[in-house]
């Protein structure tokens, strides 16, 4: 469980100024098992394994929280808007139903 998951934060568009509204895309490599699918090799049902909480924060202040169920696709993608208040760091913390915790962050550098 200690293994870090591959995840990515993308800011769109690439060039932005303070006060602009940008798109913050977050993608993570995760199986998102529903608990209904059989494993083709063993024939046993795979236990449910999905992300259940995501928090987007800017410099430690959360601005968007999400509650997620297993109905979301494999390797989920979430996109929200964010108004750039200045220089800082966007951090995304996520936990899944097995108690796995991870986070990913990216610096915001507005060009004025």
């Amino acid at each position, binding site marked *: 469980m200690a293994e870090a998951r591959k995840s990515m934060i993308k800011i769109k568009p690439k060039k932005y100024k303070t006060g602009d509204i940008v798109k913050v895309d977050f993608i993570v490599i995760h199986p998102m098992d529903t608990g*209904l699918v059989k494993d083709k090799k063993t024939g046993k049902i795979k236990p449910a394994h999905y992300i259940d909480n995501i928090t987007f924060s800017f410099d430690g202040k959360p601005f968007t929280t999400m509650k997620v169920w297993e109905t979301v696709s494999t390797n989920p993608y979430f996109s929200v808007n*964010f108004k750039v208040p200045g220089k800082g760091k966007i951090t995304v913390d996520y936990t899944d139903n097995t108690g796995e915790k991870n986070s990913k962050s990216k610096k915001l550098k507005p060009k004025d």
Partner: protein
Amino acid sequence: MKRRNFIKSMMAVSAVAVTPVALMAKEEAKAKKKGPNDMTVEAAIKAITGGTDVKKSDIIKLTVPEIAENGAVVPVKVQVDHPMEESNYVKAIHVLNTKNGNARCVDVMLTPANGKGYFATRIKLSSTQEVVALVELSNGTFIKATKSVKVTIGGCG
């Protein structure tokens, strides 16, 4: 000709014999399958709104494909034309479906810092059904928009 007729009749017989059994087996399998948090749409909407009325609204722009060839990956985009000020903003966007085992997909809690009521993700759909976007505004009112999606191959196992 004899052989052709024989094969035809055999196919007809086998089709009649096989289909009911296969169908029954499928239905049984469906009934047995239960997710960890199964919920119907009505229950989900009630759990979110607490019994308040939900009105259909034009300010929600829900973008989903009309026909989804792969039910495992259905892109959903919700845009709400509503100001995002300190006292008047979009508080939450809930993405729901009508026929999956679990009707709830994502609950997104927004704040005025977001700047716009926008959310996009990808969800799984088991069969042809409707996607519901339920939006909560900061004054406590609920609005929704629905759109149906045709699913060719289900994506829930």
